[in-house]
């Protein structure tokens, strides 16, 4: 990480308070609430609950509401012009869920109707509109997603990998979240009133905010000086009672920014209005600031809780505070809660605000804190030398079983594609631990446990193409069968994209960064990039895991080409910045493989001359849905880089599933150790020289290159 400053050079925002700078500022200056009874859909039983709703986003348009919210937020940046961003990072959890729910309920079986379902399609749509040919990342860490996306965006700039990053968050109202939070009894029927003694919960909302983060010192509103990520590793939904995770995220953000608590003029609270969140956050704040608490407020009584968008919405509100000297009120707050000991701003306040701490915490215990400051007001952030990731151990699951079973079969040139029984992946996991977990979290835990062995991983970077399909299907099925009256809290909690990563963290007590990334075929590569970018400065292992489940009902709708075969599994790498193990690195990632010149960029990144001689083997990921295009990309790269090594189309052997590259990475790691790949799998020499590495290519809509070299 360099000491580069990260500026917020442009932004867009849309929430229940309105759209854009002027409307948002006016609403914040008035202290009004944008909450109103839900109108998007009519609950068959019970009063419509107050939500933060955006009227312009009514149903019946060609693209889902989340995508349109993201487009509205991105519009001012697109209009302002300038070169395309080098990367796009979007936090979202719902993706096309609002539309998917209606389609599933109506029994629509045409996969084309679900083409915008995937959470990753929100970022992909923006990338296309902006002409971005670099990494397109989707962060799904529940309610901290938007802030975590900003943190990753800032890290991309500080690492020197990007000069301009479009980063933000978007989520729309849908039945899954409306009824999910209701089933957890986390909704205040009177509307959220964060920090109030009589608070009863949150109000779900929709919204979006996008920021153009740049390394250049243009005329900017604010600067992101620091970010901190952590995990409670405590419970799937409840925050740590002493706010341990929140505290460590805030400390990490201050540390990266090089600021002390005395520098903070205002804290934008996560402040959802639930009894436990506000209590936990209050304890953490008092532990951090002692008696000298800065001005503080939660805007969620005004905007509602826009879930994955909220962290980005509030980063923009923090930028507005820095630029316009406006501290928003804690709308809805009336009676102080002695248990909290906090006195939030009852009315909006004008003051010079140099530095803001903005919090966002989510299910799975995933915490993010951002430090937003007036531009060039403070010294640049602390530089830190980049340290490569070294593989300590690895694991995979395929239709053949776990790692040894898979490699044995491949050695004998037997196909491994399929869905292995739960009993095989659950071996060694206690029945009580997994009783509530379905396929994806079981896969993830199994992979993590095998890769980690006796080690104690401190952080988790998880990639999944489609998330927990079993839990999602069960939740929606029961919701609709009961006429929207008896949703399952267990299935809701399990349906959240980052639930498996939260389970892994809880299993190991991993309190470090915990990120979940989503992409239709490059989720594992995204997770690997995140692991490279997020260096806490500590030594100690972290897990990089990729997994996907084959679901009989949903996979054929969401990913029909892959589902035709019915295969699932994944892979895990335990990596450390210390030690002498093989080095794994992401050499290239473009989320827009379909654009002209993407393959050329890959060739350029690998180096046309001599690249071929570096590798003892190439493992190529050719997704079923994009076979001809992916083959053409591969041929081009093989000939331009003059690969002499054998090229293995690994999906032919382990099957078509989104996280197949994670399994391939684990296989590559084992084969590298042996200095050979099974010849029966491909034409070419079996053994390769000790100094050579293995290259993993991802092809199709997303193009990636991951290298593994001996340490």
């Amino acid at each position, binding site marked *: 990480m360099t000491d580069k400053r990260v500026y917020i050079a442009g932004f867009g925002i849309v929430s229940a308070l309105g759209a854009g700078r002027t409307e948002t500022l006016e609403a914040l200056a008035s202290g009004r609430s944008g909450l109103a009874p839900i109108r998007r859909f009519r609950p068959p039983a019970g009063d419509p609950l107050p939500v933060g709703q955006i009227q312009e986003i009514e149903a019946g348009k060609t693209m889902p509401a989340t995508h349109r919210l993201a487009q509205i937020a991105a519009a001012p940046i697109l209009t302002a012009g300038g070169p395309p961003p080098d990367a796009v990072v979007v936090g979202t959890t719902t993706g096309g869920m609002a539309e998917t729910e209606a389609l599933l309920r109506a029994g629509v079986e045409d996969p084309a109707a679900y083409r915008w379902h995937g959470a990753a399609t929100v970022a992909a749509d923006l990338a296309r509109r902006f002409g971005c040919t670099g990494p397109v990342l989707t962060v799904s860490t529940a309610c901290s997603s938007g802030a975590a996306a900003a943190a990753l965006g800032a890290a991309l700039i500080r690492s020197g990998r990007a000069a301009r990053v479009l980063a933000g968050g978007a989520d729309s109202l849908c039945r899954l979240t409306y009824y999910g939070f209701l089933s957890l009894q986390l909704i205040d029927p009177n509307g959220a009133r964060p920090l109030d003694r009589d608070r009863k919960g949150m109000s779900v909302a929709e919204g979006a905010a996008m920021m153009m983060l740049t390394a250049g010192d243009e005329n900017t509103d604010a600067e992101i000086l620091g970010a901190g990520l952590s995990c409670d590793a405590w419970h799937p*939904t409840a925050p740590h009672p002493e706010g341990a995770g929140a505290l460590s995220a805030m400390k990490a953000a201050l540390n990266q920014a090089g600021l002390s608590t005395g520098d903070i003029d205002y804290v934008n609270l996560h402040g959802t209005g639930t009894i436990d969140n506000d209590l936990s956050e209050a304890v953490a704040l008092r532990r951090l600031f002692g008696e000298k608490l800065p001005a503080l407020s939660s805007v969620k009584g005004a905007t509602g809780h826009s879930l994955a968008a909220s962290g980005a919405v509030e980063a923009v509100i923090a930028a507005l505070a820095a630029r316009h000297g406006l501290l928003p009120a804690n709308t809805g707050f009336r009676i102080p809660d002695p248990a909290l000991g906090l006195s939030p701003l009852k009315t909006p306040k004008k003051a010079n605000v140099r530095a803001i701490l903005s919090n966002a915490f989510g299910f799975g215990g995933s915490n993010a804190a951002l430090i937003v400051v007036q531009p060039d007001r403070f010294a640049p952030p602390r530089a830190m030398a980049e340290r490569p990731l070294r593989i300590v151990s690895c694991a995979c699951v395929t239709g053949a079983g776990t790692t040894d079973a898979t490699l044995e079969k491949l050695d004998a040139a037997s196909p491994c594609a399929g869905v292995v029984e739960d009993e095989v992946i659950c071996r060694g996991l206690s029945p009580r631990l997994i009783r509530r977990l379905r396929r994806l979290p079981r896969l993830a835990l199994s992979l993590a446990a095998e890769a980690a062995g006796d080690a104690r991983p401190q952080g988790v970077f998880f990639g999944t193409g489609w998330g927990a399909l079993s839990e999602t299907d069960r939740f929606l099925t029961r919701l609709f069968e009961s006429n929207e009256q008896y949703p399952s809290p267990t299935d809701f909690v399990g349906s959240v994209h980052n639930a498996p990563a939260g389970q892994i963290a809880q299993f190991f007590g991993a309190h470090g960064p915990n990120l979940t990334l989503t992409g239709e075929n490059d989720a594992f590569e995204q997770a690997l990039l995140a692991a490279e970018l997020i260096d806490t400065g500590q030594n100690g292992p972290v897990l990089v895991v990729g997994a996907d489940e084959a679901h009989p009902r949903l996979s054929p709708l969401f990913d029909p080409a892959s589902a035709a075969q019915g295969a699932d599994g994944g892979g895990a790498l335990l990596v450390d910045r210390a030690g002498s193990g093989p080095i794994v690195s992401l050499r290239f990632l473009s989320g827009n493989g379909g654009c002209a010149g993407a393959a050329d960029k890959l060739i350029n990144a690998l180096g046309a001359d001599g690249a071929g001689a570096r590798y003892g083997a190439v493992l190529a990921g050719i997704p079923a849905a994009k076979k001809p295009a992916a083959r053409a990309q591969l041929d081009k790269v093989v000939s331009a880089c003059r690969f002499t090594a054998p090229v293995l189309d690994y999906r032919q052997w382990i099957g078509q599933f989104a996280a197949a590259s994670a399994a391939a990475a684990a296989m590559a790691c084992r084969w590298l150790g042996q200095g050979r790949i099974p010849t029966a799998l491909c034409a070419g020499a079996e053994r390769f020289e000790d100094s050579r590495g293995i290259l993993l290519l991802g092809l199709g809509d997303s193009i990636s290159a991951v290298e593994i070299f001996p340490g």
Partner: protein
Amino acid sequence: MEPLLKELREKIVDILDLVDVRPDEIQPDARLVGGELGIDSIDVLEMVMMVEKDYGVKIDNREVGAKVFATLRALGEHIQQNAPELRE
């Protein structure tokens, strides 16, 4: 009361996927939540849904919930007293 408790035991084991618990291991007066059965706060909310769906009894605040889910017997008594069909 006994038939209701038996019914509740079976339902609890089933809906909470208590794979390592037999229904008859749930003692009427033993701690139901946070004890040896491994039942936690998410399970409580799952039971809240079951009680509302199957017996028409709503439990929508924490204080009541803490008392009702203290033991199997407390749950049975609460349902007995409040269920429209079971009320004498």
